[in-house]
Each structure stands twice: as C-alpha cells, then as structure tokens.
C-alpha cells in the first residue's frame, strides 16, 4: 500500500506555488569571500529596467560589519542566530551585534515560518574542506530544493545534498527563514582568499539555480527522479590535551581532502603531532564531510559524518495562481 501510494505520487506531478522572490545572501560569514563578491557583482550588474522575468532576486550582504573587518563574525556566529528563540529574544544594549542583525534579516526576508517569508533563500558560503558544492538544508523532502539539486548536477563541480535533521524551530541558520532555503557551500578555499575557479563555480551554480526557478515559474514540469541525500549523523572532535584543551593531532593525511569517501571502522582519522595514528572507532561506515574546516576548530568539530540514502522525488510543476 505504501509502495502503491508512492508510485501514484510519482506519476502525478506535485503542484507547488511559484517562487516569486529569491534572496541571494553573501557575507553571512565575513571572511567567506566568494559569496561577498558574487552578491556585490550581481548588484553592480543589475541594469535598470532589466526585468528578471518570472522571478525577483533580492541580494543581501548578511553581516556587513564582519565583511568590513574580513572576519567570520564580530561577537557571535550570525549563522547560529536564527532559532525561533533567538529571533524573538528581547534586545538590550548588551545584545550582540549578530543577534540584532539576525532579527533585522528576519524582518527583511521572513518572518520565519510565516506566509510573508521569501520563497527561497540561497545563502552563499565557503569552506576550507574539499567538499565541491553542497546544498545544505534542514528539510529532506523539500521537492523544490531537491529538484534544484538534481538540476545542478549539470554543473562542472560535483554537487551534493546534505540534510541536517533538525526541526524548523531549532534550525539556527539563515536559510531557515525562507519558505524554502539552502546554504550553498563551496570549497576548498582558505577563508580570506578568493580563488577564481571557486568563484566561477559558485557563479555557474547560482545561474543554474535561477534558470531552474524561471523555468519552474513559467510552468515547466520537472520529471520525477532521485537524489542522493547525505543526512548528518554525528560529529567527531579533535583529540585534545585534558589541561590546555589544545588539539594534539591533525586530520590524518589519508582522510584529509577525502570528503564523501566512505569511512570504515578502523580507518585512520587523526595523526598526532608526535606521530601516532588514531582510528575511527564507530561501528558503521559513514560519509565524512567538513573535514578540517577552519571555523569548526573552536566549535569542537574535526569532521562530520553522514549516512547516504537515495530519496525519490516526484515530478513537480508550478501551480498557476
């Protein structure tokens, strides 16, 4: 019965409202340069009178203070400030800048969870990890996001879909404000550096995404199919000195840069500075990602681990208003 229902669902296209407003956000972290430059260039290139047919694109520099200083954040990580609790927290003189800013962004692009929120948020990020391009989102059955991911497979760079299984109220990042949203994460790139190949890849992916939105809004039906989804299971911290809390090992050379290569129990994960190998002690082979991301040292994360599953997506089509 379950299978019959699933087959029925796939045959008939799911109709969804048009995405009339898309927000393109850069500089949520002020030292992740591709998105900052892409937003600035998109703004420069918006010729007056040029109608982006069928979709309005809003460009936002999310954390202008951090961008100005070329730091990830000034007081607290902006991209952890979008839970319902933080968005509704009372503001005082002591409120960190980023919480004030997250509430501003929520007014501008949300309110989160309401009918006025923008249809799609694409939040642009870079990582020092060798992750190619990843769409990162909370929802595992958001057909819009999954279809966009399927469409992006034609990009030159490898494209993957990462899912964090967190309910919307606890979802802490910017893209959770939109009706649909994902972080578009591209690496490897050092923070504070802009690499031409990475910038071009992000530019290409954003164009493909906006092309898809235009096609969708114009009534194109997108066929059913399937997308590989990586669902985050857990994270592993660096081994640390019990007194100083300093890390005592680096990611092992055989794991470094091998994001999305299956990690088996017993595989080396760390090489201590004194030369010892530490191995993966989990019971289940899992897919590592965000391997050696610079910004995660202070969050106690050396790498994240995911389970991979094939998610079937139905045909979808825009419902005429």
């Amino acid at each position, binding site marked *: 019965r379950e299978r019959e229902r699933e087959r029925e669902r796939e045959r008939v296209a799911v109709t969804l409202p048009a995405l009339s407003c898309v927000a393109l956000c850069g500089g949520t972290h002020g030292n992740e340069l591709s998105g900052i430059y892409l937003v600035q260039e998109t703004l420069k290139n918006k010729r007056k009178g040029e109608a982006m047919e069928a979709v309005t694109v809003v460009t936002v520099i999310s954390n202008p203070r951090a961008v100005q200083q070329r730091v990830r954040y000034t007081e607290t990580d902006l991209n952890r400030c979008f839970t319902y609790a933080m968005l509704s927290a009372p503001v005082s003189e002591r409120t960190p800048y980023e919480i004030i800013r997250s509430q501003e962004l929520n007014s501008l692009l949300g309110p989160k969870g309401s009918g006025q929120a923008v249809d799609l948020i694409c939040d642009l990020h870079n990582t020092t990890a060798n992750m190619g391009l990843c769409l990162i989102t909370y929802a595992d059955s958001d057909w819009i996001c999954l279809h966009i991911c399927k469409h992006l497979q034609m990009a030159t760079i490898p494209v993957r879909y990462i899912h964090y299984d967190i309910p919307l109220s606890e979802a802490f990042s910017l893209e959770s404000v939109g009706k649909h949203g994902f972080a578009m994460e591209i690496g490897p790139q050092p923070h504070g*550096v802009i690499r031409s190949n990475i910038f071009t890849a992000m530019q290409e992916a954003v164009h493909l995404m906006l092309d898809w939105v235009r096609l969708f809004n114009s009534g194109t039906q997108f066929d059913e199919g399937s997308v590989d989804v990586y669902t985050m299971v857990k994270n592993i911290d660096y081994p640390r000195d019990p007194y100083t809390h300093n890390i005592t090992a680096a990611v092992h050379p055989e794991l*470094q840069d091998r994001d999305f290569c299956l990690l088996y129990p017993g595989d080396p994960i760390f090489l201590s500075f004194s030369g010892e190998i530490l191995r993966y002690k989990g019971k289940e082979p899992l897919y590592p990602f965000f391997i050696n991301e610079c910004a995660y040292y202070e969050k106690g994360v050396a790498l994240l681990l995911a389970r991979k599953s094939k998610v079937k997506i139905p045909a979808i089509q825009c419902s005429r208003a």
Partner: protein
Amino acid sequence: MGLITLPVIRRMAVCGGTHGNELTGVYLVPELERQRREKGDTLWPVPVTTVLSNPRAVKECKRYVNKDLNRCFTSAILSSPVTDTTPYEVQRAQELNSMLGPKGTADATDIICDLHNTTANMGLTVISYSHTNWVIMHIYKYLQEKITKVPVRLILLNIPICDAYSLESVAKHGISLEVGPQPHGVVRADIFNVMKEGVNVVLDWIQHFNSGKVIEGAEVDVFMFEKSVDYPRDTETQNPLAVIHPQLQDQDFCLLQRGDPLFLTFSGETVGYDEEEPLHPFFINEAAYYEKGIAFHLARKKTLVIPNIQAKND
C-alpha cells in the same frame, strides 16, 4: 674553490606563532618541547630555545593583535621608547630581541628558524636577507638535497640588516621556513610533516657542520626579490576589480613572460603581464597580503656559487 672557516654553531632558536593563525609552527613548537622532555637535552646537537613568538595572537588565532609582529624588528622599532600606547607587538618584539638578540651584537643567538605558513602554493621556501651568509646558503643547499616531498626554494630580500624587519634578522644567521599551501587557522598533517622534517634537517646540518668536516660548496639557484604587484582596484572604493587568473593561481615560481595572464576581472577580462623582463611570481594569492596591497611578488632567478666551509672552534 677556497675554504672559508666560520665559528661553530652554539645556540639555535625555533620560533612558531609569529603569526598566530599560521598553525604549523604553533603546534610544532610544543611538540619539540615534548620531545625534549621525553628524550633530554642530548636529543639535539646544540641547545635549542623554543619560542611561541606572539602568544596573544595565538590565543585568538589571529595573525596579530595590534600590529604585524613580523614587521617590528627593524633597529629603529627595536630601540623605540615604550609608552602606554605602544602596540603589543612592538613590546613583544623588544622582549624577543632581549631573549634572542640583541640584534647585531655578538650575544645574539646563532640561528633562528622562524616557522610560517602561506595560502600560496610555495612548497618549502626559505626566506632570508643575505646571499653572502654562507651558513644560510649551505643550510638551504642541504634542505634542497634532503627534502623530496615538496620543492625547496630560497628567496633573498635585498635589505640591509638594520632595516630588516622580520624576527629571524635578530640572529646571526636567521631564516624563515615558509610552508604552503595551508589555509590560515587550519593545521594539515602533510604540511606539519614537511615543516617537522625541515627543522630536523636544519639540526642535522648543524651537527655535520659542528663536527668540523669540510662542507662542500656548489652552485645554487636562488630567487632575488624584485617587486610586488597589487590587484587592479577601483579608483574610488579601492576594492579589487579582479582575482588572480586561474592560469596563474598555484603556479608560484613559474616563469612569467610578456602576455601571460595575471588577473581575471569580474567582468571576464584578462589582465596580462606587460613587463619586458620575464620574472618569477611567488606568494600568489596570500590571504594576509590583501590588506598590504599585494597580489603576488616577483623575483629574478640567479645562480650563485657558495664556497666550501668548515667550522672552527674559537
């Protein structure tokens, strides 16, 4: 080829965290200290002082707190009076000069090895001031012979010692070991191992030299710093208008000929190298140099002859 006799090496310092977010040195210094605790002072051919140069910057994982420490070692800054408004790094430079110097005197430590990382694809690059410092030239030659995992090169800065602004200029024979590419704030195991091997090779050389053997000279290729090139910038906002061209990115030490691509503007145009003389670019797309107005440096390659040397006890 003649023979030059030089004093035996008596003391060495290894410095990490001169830039607090260049993590290889930040972790190699405590690892050397751990080795010394475990194996005792006989581990190394000479006493080695290990120093975390900029502890406040290391704690915050930033390049510097007030001012780039590695620009504070000119004779002028080292002798400037300290007041309440003196930047932290200037005070720290003066402390380091007392500890490891004073610069230019007979009391200065013999060798400083200052550990750095770069986001540029520079393998292991030795940086120093003098092309007639035979100890340094021989250390470089030995590193080139012994290290095979990455290319090893030498950059010479044509600056007289009193104007030399970086930490290693405090020693009689000072070198920076620059290893990349590594993002700042990240420690990679492969880069750590290259640096660890580099420091061990330097110690190994000291042992050979101090044993009194004649160390044979040779011809070596070196890169003499010529000038810096900035990004094309908007004349009003000073914002960069272009990024390093994909054909130049990661090609440190290649030969740039007239017409070769340097930058790709955001509007898709290529800016080419328009100088007559072919030169070699390095520090291509170093994160810390954006604020210094440097996209890359250019160097002239030269072949130098280094003489045989021999240690003598004085």
